[in-house]
């Protein structure tokens, strides 16, 4: 079947099997390997992308479900060489070590920055429930997101 959707701001089309996962299409079809696959069972959040502006786990979404909608991956977050403020906040606070979880953390973080009115630590941690990090201990990630929520206000 054919799917057509907006990917990082540009219209794209692809031929997929109905059972093709969105994560597979992004990585293998479009070469956007910033979307990581950690567990492939919906637990770790490394594969998080935005579907119509909301964070979803692309290993639990069919490519067909994205048809006609808008997908944003980590590759579409920076403005050319200029990091998005949340990416810069991650860099400044050492919110990544091995970096495996980072694309998913940033995509969930962007959803939280858009959604939360105040940088409440408990709310940020609740919002990151679906993203696992084996390196950082989470604190700098929470601080980076809190920083961006403060800055937007």
């Amino acid at each position: 079947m054919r799917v057509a959707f907006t990917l990082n701001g540009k219209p794209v089309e692809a031929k997929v099997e109905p059972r093709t996962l969105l994560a597979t299409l992004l990585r293998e079809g479009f070469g956007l390997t910033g979307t990581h696959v950690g567990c492939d069972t919906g637990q770790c959040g490394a594969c998080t992308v935005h579907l119509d502006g909301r964070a979803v786990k692309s290993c639990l979404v069919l490519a067909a479900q994205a048809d006609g909608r808008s997908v944003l991956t980590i590759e579409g977050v920076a403005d050319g060489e200029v990091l998005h403020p949340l990416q810069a906040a991650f860099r400044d606070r050492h919110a990544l070590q091995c970096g495996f979880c980072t694309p998913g953390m940033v995509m969930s973080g962007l959803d939280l920055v858009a959604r939360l009115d105040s940088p409440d630590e408990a709310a940020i941690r609740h919002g990151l429930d679906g993203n696992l990090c084996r390196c950082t201990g989470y604190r700098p990630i929470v601080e980076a997101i809190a920083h961006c929520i403060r800055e937007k206000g």
Partner: protein
Amino acid sequence: MFPFDYLRPQSAAEAVAAHDGGERRYLAGGQSLLAALKLRLAQPSALIDVARLPELTGTRVEDGRLVVGAAVPHAGMAALPHIPALALLSGSIGDLQVRNMGTLGGALANADPASDHAAGVLGLGAEIRTDRRTIAADDFFLGMFETALEPGELIVAVGYPLPRRAGYAKVRNPASGYPVAGVFVAETDSGIRVAVTGAAACPFRLTEFEMALEGDFSPAALEGLGVPPDALNRDLHASAEYRAALIPVLARRALGLGGGS
């Protein structure tokens, strides 16, 4: 996943017509179904995507009821102001990404024994509206992953009576997020209801607790009441005895009418 066809009809009527009552399955958020397909626990011939059907989206208040479309995601329900306990329940499901994709109708049709929405629907005495009839919450849940839905029957919306007050409290399994046990308490125009999820094959009501709360809607009214562990689940997360001990505690917390976790 085994191969399947994918269909996206434009209306609820077309979706029901596309369902053969057999090997085809509806797909909403896919947060339970795709996980099951990956494990090859099911082999549908086709998935019928109902997530964007106009009849299944949107919410409204009508005749003292909050009517929520079956395809409304948990995150959408978490933002609804009408029934704060239901919003808190919805905002406590799984994680951010699951709440953005997973839907009310999918959760009810799936009937996971630890479903949060099952507690809200049974605790409020909601009605489940399908393409062909209205099913009372008391008649909907039949067993583990088993409901009163007929093959091919499509949930269109859920009508929740607006309660005078309501509360939900649960203990989450820290790894999965699913409730080890959860209790929803509500005072509605038609009486007091106490519903438990996560503790048995399907959600159930505690009539003894309901009667005790009739005269005195407070934690003190539950003094001395308990639940026998015999019929409760025992699994790697908790023993039946632990669940039996949790239920009265959670009922009292729910009567605090917050969304305690």
